[in-house]
């Protein structure tokens, strides 16, 4: 646990308690925190939360052995990011869920081949080219994803693998030879990665950043964000974190397009669309904003890979008819 963040966990506790239901807890990745909180308070724990805990426990006990096997199979540098590396910074590490191991390595193809030779099995296909197809060890419910660079925000320059590898330290998991990112770099990478999935969308992603980053590292993180060209994205994320987990006043995003965060609720369909358009405006360097907004408009209207044109039209029509539906109900 980051010893400088007792206020963080107290605020997180409050945000977990006010989540309006299971769908909101799941959206913000608060299921494990909620289960622990309810048990601590003597409240009944929903069977779905218990199931989430059991799966998380199975994954958690598997991590050490899996990482040791990966480390011994691959000769190249390996840097663990997110998941169990972040969990080590949580007040209660078992409350940080993860379903995969994200590993940055300079030669993804060689590492991938080495893991297949060692007995790992390929599943599915890579989702967007930012990592190789996921691998699993038979019987272990954890995916292994190898990256040369993390998923990043469109129209922002991705830091080079060499630069990323220069910002490492021994992994907090304690696995010999496995690295993790220094807290300042890890926090900025987590912010960019979270933003790429959805601007200020999930509280759990913001908790991760706050847990990783101590006050001592904050200045260095600002420098890294500036050097990587993501200063605006980082500043918006920091201000949101200060407001949600510290003493900062609610920022404009938290009062408008990301206001679902302050109530620990799911975003509505309309809010998510608005957030997608607002994201580039708030995150990108000013000269790249028009192109970024254009990208997002295209993303909203274009077909997903798995959709037929009819599916896509139906989805668009439903979104227009039910703009105030929580996103989980809309997907269903």
């Amino acid at each position, binding site marked *: 646990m980051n010893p400088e963040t007792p206020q963080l966990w107290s605020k997180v506790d409050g945000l977990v308690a006010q989540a309006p239901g299971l769908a909101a807890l799941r959206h913000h990745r608060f299921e494990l925190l909620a289960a622990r909180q309810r*048990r601590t308070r003597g409240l009944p*724990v929903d069977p779905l939360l*218990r199931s989430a*805990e*059991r799966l998380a*426990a*199975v994954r*958690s*006990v*598997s991590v*050490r*052995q899996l990482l040791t096997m990966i480390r011994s199979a691959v000769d190249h540098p390996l840097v663990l990011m997110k998941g169990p590396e972040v969990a080590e910074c949580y007040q209660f590490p*078992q409350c940080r869920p993860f379903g995969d191991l994200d590993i940055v390595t300079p030669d993804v193809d060689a590492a991938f081949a080495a893991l297949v030779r060692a007995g790992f099995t390929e599943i599915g296909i890579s989702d967007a080219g930012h990592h190789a197809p996921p691998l699993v060890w038979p*019987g272990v419910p954890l995916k292994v994803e190898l990256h040369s660079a993390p998923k990043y925000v469109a129209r922002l320059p991705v830091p080079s693998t060499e630069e990323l590898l220069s910002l490492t330290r021994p992994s907090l998991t304690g696995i010999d030879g496995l690295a993790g990112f220094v807290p300042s770099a890890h926090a900025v990478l987590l912010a960019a990665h979270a933003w790429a999935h959805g601007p200020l969308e999930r509280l759990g992603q913001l908790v991760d950043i706050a847990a990783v980053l101590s006050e001592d590292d904050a200045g260095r993180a600002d420098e890294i964000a500036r050097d990587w060209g993501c200063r605006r994205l980082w500043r918006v994320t920091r201000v949101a974190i200060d407001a949600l987990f510290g003493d900062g006043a609610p920022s404009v995003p938290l009062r408008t397009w990301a206001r679902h965060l302050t109530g620990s609720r799911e975003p509505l369909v309309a809010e998510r669309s608005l957030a997608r358009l607002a994201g580039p405006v708030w995150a990108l360097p000013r000269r790249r904003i028009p192109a970024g907004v254009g990208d997002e408009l295209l993303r909203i209207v274009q077909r997903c890979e798995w959709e037929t044109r009819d599916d896509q039209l139906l989805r668009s029509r439903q979104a227009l008819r039910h703009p105030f539906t929580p996103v989980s109900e809309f997907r269903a």
Partner: protein
Amino acid sequence: MTNNTGGDNMTLCLRKEDLDWREIDDEIVALDGREATYLAVQGSGTLVWRLLATSTTREHLIEALVETYDIDATRAEADIDAFIGTLNDRGLLAS
């Protein structure tokens, strides 16, 4: 008592190597790395597992079971011996 559970005052302890577990409320989820198998322990087994994690004796385990579950010593002895026997058969106890 069966032979493989040790005497009353013999120290009993879970194996330290290749055995990892997490506790969820009243349940233990464990991974036996040597056999690559997952185990789940519930109810009174969780109490016994906790005590074995820090090393204990058969006598202490029986006392703990009697005290916590308000059962008679004969039944507690039988339960402890069965549980310890299972752990021993699976190679989960320190030798």
